[in-house]
């Protein structure tokens, strides 16, 4: 029995992303300002102080900007918080970001 042969097309859609060129990382975190982003879940309020404590011991002069400065990035007003994020990070002189908790 000869079965029909089907010529089929691709079921996905065109990918829209553009490759983002990543800026150089930071060689030494000492004296740097770390911005914290959070949605306030998954025991973030327990995890973050320990992260700060351990990093402060290893990197003298490291400074943390609390997540409340940037709003809840996955809350009811996340669209506004995300839109304002670049300006807020620069305004606080942030050198690096720790974002969490993804779970």
């Amino acid at each position, binding site marked *: 029995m000869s079965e029909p042969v089907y*010529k089929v097309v691709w079921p996905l859609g065109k990918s829209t992303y553009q490759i983002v060129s990543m800026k150089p990382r930071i060689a030494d975190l000492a004296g740097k300002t770390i911005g914290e982003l959070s949605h306030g879940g998954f025991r973030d309020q327990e995890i973050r102080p320990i992260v700060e404590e*351990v990093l402060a011991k290893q990197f003298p002069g490291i400074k943390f900007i609390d997540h409340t400065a940037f709003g809840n990035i996955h809350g009811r007003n996340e669209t506004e918080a995300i839109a304002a994020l670049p300006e807020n990070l620069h305004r606080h002189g*942030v050198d690096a970001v720790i974002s969490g908790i993804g779970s």
Partner: protein
Amino acid sequence: MVRASAIAEKAGIPTATIVATGFLGQAKATAKALGMANLGIAEYPGIIMNQSKEELRKNVEEVLVKNIIQVLTKPVENAVKVNEPGRADIIFEGTLDEVNEYFIQKQWSDGLPIIPPTVERVQLFLGFTDRKPDDLIGILAPANREATVWSVAVNGVMAGCRPEYMPVLIAIVEAIAEPDFHLRDAGATPGWEPLIVLNGPIVKELDFNYESGVLRAGRQANTSIGRFIRLYMRNVAGLLIAPGSTDKGSIGLGLNVVLAENEDAVSELGWESFSSQRGFNRDDNVVTVQSALSTTIPIYSAGDTALDHMDTFVEVFGGTCAFWSHTAVRKGKYFPLLIISPGVAKVIARDGWTKKDIQQHLFEHTKVSVRALEKHAWQIGFSEFDLHALVEKGIISKAYSQSHDPDRLVPAFIRPEWIGIVVSGDPGRNQSKGFVQNHDQAPPISKKIVLPSDWKKLFEGVKKTNAED
């Protein structure tokens, strides 16, 4: 978290995103679709919510902080974009079995046999819309791929739809492509499933079931269109269950067939239809898509007064929905849906009640204790759950902050008008059923179905062909 980190990276600031072990694949896939396949992910080991304080401290000190330091300081390479096929390129040739096997291997199938999407079949579907194949409907996250009329037709073919369903399929994709639908969150752990509610003359025209077994697979229109939306979310939005990684629905739910409202029953009752409550005319054909987390048990209510039935609705529908109110109050959104069978609706309507009266009664009488809200909020991972703070931020009303008594009762629903009421199901039985919904993730979004200008002629042709077959 990944999306926020991506914004920071675009602003030129290095990031470390803390992600628990079970979510690494999802985080990496999301980062890739944002053009940052090498985004720094700092793993937190294990299931956070199940660890003792001592375990948590040890994991942060010995694992997490090292990972954070590594991703913030280690040089990173930029990703490279791969070439993909054009929309009408032939990507495979083979028999029915071979095509199905190929699509399964590529993760483009839901596991059921598909109809091979040939150009000829796709063209048949495109004949049932005035829109151009390349018309862009939206960009669907998390994969961030284009949703076009063409890809709607391709996936409609695969799902086993008829070509004349095309206007309905387009309206469905228009709904889920709306930014407020939050399709990007469809891979969240609660595992919600899209529910399509259909209204208008097209219910009968395309032969949708709206009576007994309305939520069962078994009628082509309801079933194949229900399959279509999940297939489209898989292929275009990129939501893949294991061995994929973008759909983290922990357990999930089987796909929903289309829920069509019984328009005749609604007219006989003198009620508004589901879509007319949402601002459409009764003769408009309308799809509404929203999230559905789970159904209630079958709600058998008996009696010859409206209140007889409402008491049971509050107890079973309200009680079930109340177990998910902790997520609703956190976002200030909640859109559960109650399906009332025509026989029950008739008793309620006979007492002069409208759908609005039902919504108001459910809202006023369904309560949940703050103790229960806080318990379930903590267990899901909302470790900063604070009703008084939510009231201060204006997310929920002052009804939630009347005192600090943990045993006080507060409303389980956010607004009465946000409780959906659909008349459907077996007209010969006193049963209703409800759906719990997932707060701001996929609130109901309605779209009018736009028929092609020569719909009548096209559809007559279909009916004639079917009759000849």
